[in-house]
């Protein structure tokens, strides 16, 4: 029985980095999954949520629950968006009564259940499908940036690395302080641009020290930011999303 996967495509991937989603589809299909894309989806609500606009984020969450209600497996090529659904939807959709006690309603429970069927890509491949070798070929040196949400909220430390090490021709190089934040942080990147850029520079330096041709991660937003910073420094390395490496066949 092929696994049925509903694709959850982050809004900025959909609009600005579609290749990440295209690659995700390719990898899943190669492994025999039936992939569909609920076209009604828009955004998980994270930008509003992180900025403190929970009233504006809540309808997005409710909408998401509706759009994905019948999905068996929801797979997303982003640690932060997956975190939004699994970790924060239950909190966003519960409500605090006057004493501060969280009251879980039906929506809260629905969100918890939905969260259990929502997976970041590497998580889905390794923990749900049980594969580490996805038949990819990528003859380059690659280093790994451990995006914060995937690492600390979803507890994904080994999964992306296992997948990378199984890629044919790939030389994996460890990065110092791979778990240090790259400095993207959503609206933080523009509201506190100097700090964001300084953090990005520190990350770019860590990448440069490895000498790797590529730096990869499970979060396209991190890569977007690091690529921009590295571009300003005329760095040698390029960014590529994990899905891009796993989809590669030559």
């Amino acid at each position, binding site marked *: 029985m092929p696994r049925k996967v509903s694709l959850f495509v982050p809004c900025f991937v959909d609009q600005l980095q579609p290749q990440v989603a295209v690659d995700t589809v390719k990898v899943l299909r190669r492994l025999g999954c039936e992939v569909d894309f609920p076209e009604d989806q828009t955004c998980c609500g994270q930008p509003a949520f992180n900025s403190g606009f929970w009233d504006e984020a809540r309808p997005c969450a409710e909408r998401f629950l509706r759009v994905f209600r019948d999905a068996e497996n929801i797979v997303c090529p982003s640690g932060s968006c997956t975190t939004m659904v699994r970790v924060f939807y239950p909190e966003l959709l519960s409500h605090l009564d006057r*004493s*501060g*006690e*969280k009251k879980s309603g039906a929506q809260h429970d629905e969100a918890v259940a939905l969260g259990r069927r929502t997976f970041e890509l590497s998580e889905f491949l390794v923990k749900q499908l049980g594969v580490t070798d996805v038949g990819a070929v990528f003859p380059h040196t690659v280093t790994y940036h451990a995006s914060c949400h995937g690492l600390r909220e979803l507890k994904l430390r080994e999964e992306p690395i296992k997948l990378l090490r199984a890629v044919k021709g790939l030389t994996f190089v460890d990065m110092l302080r791979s778990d240090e934040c790259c400095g993207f942080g959503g609206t933080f990147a523009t509201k506190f641009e100097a700090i964001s850029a300084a953090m990005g520079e520190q990350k770019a330096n860590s990448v440069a020290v490895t000498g790797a041709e590529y730096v990869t991660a499970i979060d396209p937003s991190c890569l977007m930011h690091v690529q921009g910073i590295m571009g300003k420094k005329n760095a040698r390395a390029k960014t590529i999303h994990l899905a891009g490496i796993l989809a590669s066949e030559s």
Partner: protein
Amino acid sequence: MPTQNPSREQILERIRSGLRAPAPALDDRPFEAEIFEPVTDPLERFRQECKANLMECHLVADSNAAAQTLAQVLQSLPPGEIYVQDDPALRRLIVASGARRPVRWSTQAAPAESSQATITLADALIAQTGSIFVSASCGGRGASVVAPVHIAMARQSQLVPDLETALHNATADQRLEKNSYACIISGSSRTADIEKILVQGAHGPMRLVVIVETD
């Protein structure tokens, strides 16, 4: 000095009303996990930790050996007065060590700035952290901190495996009812406030010497 303290009631009232809402449930089952590796050989562990703490630890067989070791340590110091906790055992020890230095006893006065060293007993030794447990009855507060060298005389029977035991004992024998102060000392005074470089001998003693009579 009787002081008006109207805020006391206000603060307590604010605390009580704030706590009316109970905190969300946490796992309140009794704690099972072992936080620290159990200490299997306390004396050896004590010795190792003292070394790591940059303390000088001497294990001696009997009171004669203790006196000899003390004499050697004192010889390594510049001439001058020493401050000693006034205790019969220490009075005997000073005589046995043959120390020819002026002695200021803790019953006479507080330690002076000019003391070259202080000599005290200890309430306990702690293997886990290589510590000595002293209190005000060990010659007073200044005795373990004013002079550049502090020498503590102890016995192996005073050695406990860990902090938990030491603090449990201190609670049971009401150490802080009988003493206005106590201190667990785990090394010589040090600081890393300059470029994170460890420098020994900040405001407290530069050297902490422990002489332990083994069983």
